[in-house]
């Protein structure tokens, strides 16, 4: 068996994991769109975390494919399919989910080690949540000029965001990520791999360990996520630009209307002509 063959085999396996992770997580997020979020007193329980699905797959198989598959699945199934696509802001979710799942997958050397699996699951979730929190804080900081100058604002933002983070991690994180992952990984380990024609991951075969390079890539991804989210919300504070434009005067607006009307008329005529040509 030569190197090229080996390469193509792993390629196909990656595609398989991508497809698997995408379909399952996509299906799950489709439901979360439909399940209402609810509050128990102060504590908000957002049942939006089916993150255990990609976490489990990332721990058992190639982490990157599982992570990318999950993020794509969410984008395609619940955003695009239901017409809930939010534009640039979706990139933030895409990247944080990918990074969180990827980190968790890389941490586990031996899926039969429960402690390791649990630690990885909660770390991955925490990473994903923390990134979301940081993005939120950055958003406020960016939107409010003189963020530091407003008395009490930084503290209150940090406090509320920090509370939300802890709350999400302790409730959603444990209930919907840690426990299901701990339930699923040992049950699936050794069973799901033969179905995909692969050998189970063992301490010896694992690509595990978070290399500095992987961490740098993750950090870069996170920066992209922040930038994307900021760009998406930037509009809220760019009113200056708008004001100038609105004052541009009646003449310009009238010109635009005339131009548009002429264009519509011209197109209508052209279309008629072409239809006549076709019928001839």
């Amino acid at each position, binding site marked *: 068996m030569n190197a090229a*063959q080996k390469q193509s085999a792993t390629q196909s396996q990656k595609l398989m994991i991508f497809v698997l992770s995408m379909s399952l997580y996509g299906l799950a997020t489709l439901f979360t769109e439909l399940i209402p979020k609810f509050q128990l007193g102060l504590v908000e329980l957002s049942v939006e975390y089916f993150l255990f699905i990609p976490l489990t797959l990332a721990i058992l198989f190639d982490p990157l494919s599982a992570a990318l598959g999950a993020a794509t699945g969410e984008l395609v199934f619940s955003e695009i399919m239901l017409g809930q696509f939010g534009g640039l802001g979706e990139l933030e979710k895409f990247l944080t989910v990918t990074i969180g799942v990827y980190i968790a997958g890389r941490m586990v050397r031996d899926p039969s080690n429960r402690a390791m699996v649990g630690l990885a699951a909660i770390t991955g979730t925490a990473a994903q949540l923390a990134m979301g929190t940081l993005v939120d804080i950055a958003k406020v900081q960016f939107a409010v000029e003189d963020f530091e100058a407003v008395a009490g604002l930084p503290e209150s933002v940090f406090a509320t965001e920090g509370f939300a983070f802890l709350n999400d991690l302790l409730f959603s994180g444990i209930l919907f990520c840690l426990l299901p992952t701990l339930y699923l990984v040992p049950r699936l380990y050794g069973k799901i791999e033969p*179905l995909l024609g692969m050998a189970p991951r063992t301490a010896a075969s694992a690509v595990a360990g978070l290399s500095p390079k992987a961490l740098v890539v993750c950090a870069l991804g996170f920066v992209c996520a922040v930038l994307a989210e900021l760009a998406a919300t930037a509009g809220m504070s760019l009113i200056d630009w708008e004001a100038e434009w609105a004052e541009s005067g009646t003449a310009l607006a009238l010109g635009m209307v005339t131009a548009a009307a002429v264009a519509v008329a011209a197109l209508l005529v052209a279309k008629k002509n072409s239809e006549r040509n076709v019928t001839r």
Partner: protein
Amino acid sequence: MNVVEIAGLTYTYPGASQPTLKDISLEIEQGDFLAVVGNNGCGKSTLCKVLNGLIPHFITGDLTGEVRVAGVNTLESDVGALAQKVGYVYQDFENQIVRPTVLDDASYSCLNYAFPDYQERGRRALAQCGLSGREEEYVWQLSGGQTHLLALAGAVSLQPEILILDEPIAQLDPLHADRIYEVLRELNEKQGKTIIVIEHHTEYIADYCRHVMLMKDGGAAWKLPTRQALQRVEELEECNIFPPQVTQAACRLKNAGFLPTDSPLPTTVAEGRRIFPVPGCLPRQNPPSARPPEPPAVSFQKVSLAYRSVKGEPRTIFDGLDLEIRQGERVALIGSNGAGKSTLMKLMVGLLKPQSGKVSLYGESISDKKAEDFSRQISLVYQNPEEMFIKDSIRGDIAYAMQVRGVPQWEERTDELLERFRLKALEGRDGRLMSGGQMRRASLAIGVALEPGVLLLDEPTANLDIATRREILSVLEDMKDIIQTAVIATHDMQLVCQWAQRIVVLCGGRVVADGTRDEIFSRPDLAQLVGIRPPEIFTMAQALCPGALCYTVDEFTNWFKEAQTHAKADE
């Protein structure tokens, strides 16, 4: 000219200790129509994947020997180049379809291999597979048989010289199965394609194939012309392949001295008519079963149901259906794919609610009960056993319903069921990782765990080879004492004839016939209407003597012997 040449092929899956294919040498002529038969797990599918290059280019492993397909050495080629020489249709063909519309899917390969005229090629392939006029339809609008034809069209679109089909008719009713084989015959005869099928249904092999290859323990035992191959009854039966019923019957009669020892065994009804001497006509009378009417177990009163459809009007499944199933009955529901059999079962367990009318169970309307509540009265075994496995071991699955209900001694009951269904040795395994027959047995055990009064079975023998079917049949016989009333939806007429007391024929959401097997099968108009077909042996007996009613090989041989003796006595 040989289109396939294999020399000394041995292959081991990665991580396996034993080779799956052992020293196979084989030649297949251009334009052949070859059936590959053999026990489950003898390497049939593996061999086919070697031919299209998936092994070793996609699925790695240890391969020695030489494989040449259409003059190309598969080791030196790649999957892409080979895909244009060998088309492959999987057994679970619906997973092979990746595009949403029919034409898109048929032309997908051609597009990927960069043929500018990909749509034309797709259309041509659809025409060759008899799907013209459906180009714009969405794939989920197709029936099971049409979906299979589409998978075939996807393979044909690249115009490969060889087509390989893995158990093409396992899930289809006889009409659709005929359709597939007619298409294959046309591709073989008119287009000169070489066709290789993995097939258990020897009746179809006898009708359509030119050669048969027997595989045994990873080796190729022999390859012979079909007629010769099917004569080797004992050898085939040893490998769990059952020759056509006509052949089996002739073989037994020959051994019993009722046929000359030098006469060849017939493989089709037409041959049988030439070979069997016409016995004196002695119509076999099955005594009419007069039973006192029992109270009904399930009854349908004017039930109407329609599905929402993606577009346009809802599709009506039932319109004012009336049907009664009495306690203690064994009922077979038959009808073509899409006649409403599965829907009827879902109505009985309350998974679907009728839009009007009433379904009642033991006299009580089921809309008043919750699905969870009557699981002790009625139970459904799905067509696809994998969907019944929700725990990580067979034991857990069988125990689940009893455990959560706190049935006393549920642990002992679980042990009993495991014993009874011969699953004790497998109790820790996950259901999905077992063989087809084991999966079925497990799903039956799950279905009867709560000792329901009514047991519903949806296609219990689909996707199984004949040997496993026999096994399931014996399990069903064995369950008679625990299950009072049973309903089976099936295409398997041998199962119907051997097991059912009453046959209900559904067509277009109506009950078009209802009666014993004699009443149903002696009506030729029904065969025309719904495409049901009696077992081959029944047709054989009728061909010899129009009044004869024989449903099994045993009944046929007994009848034949009796008639022969009778005729001799008369002389």
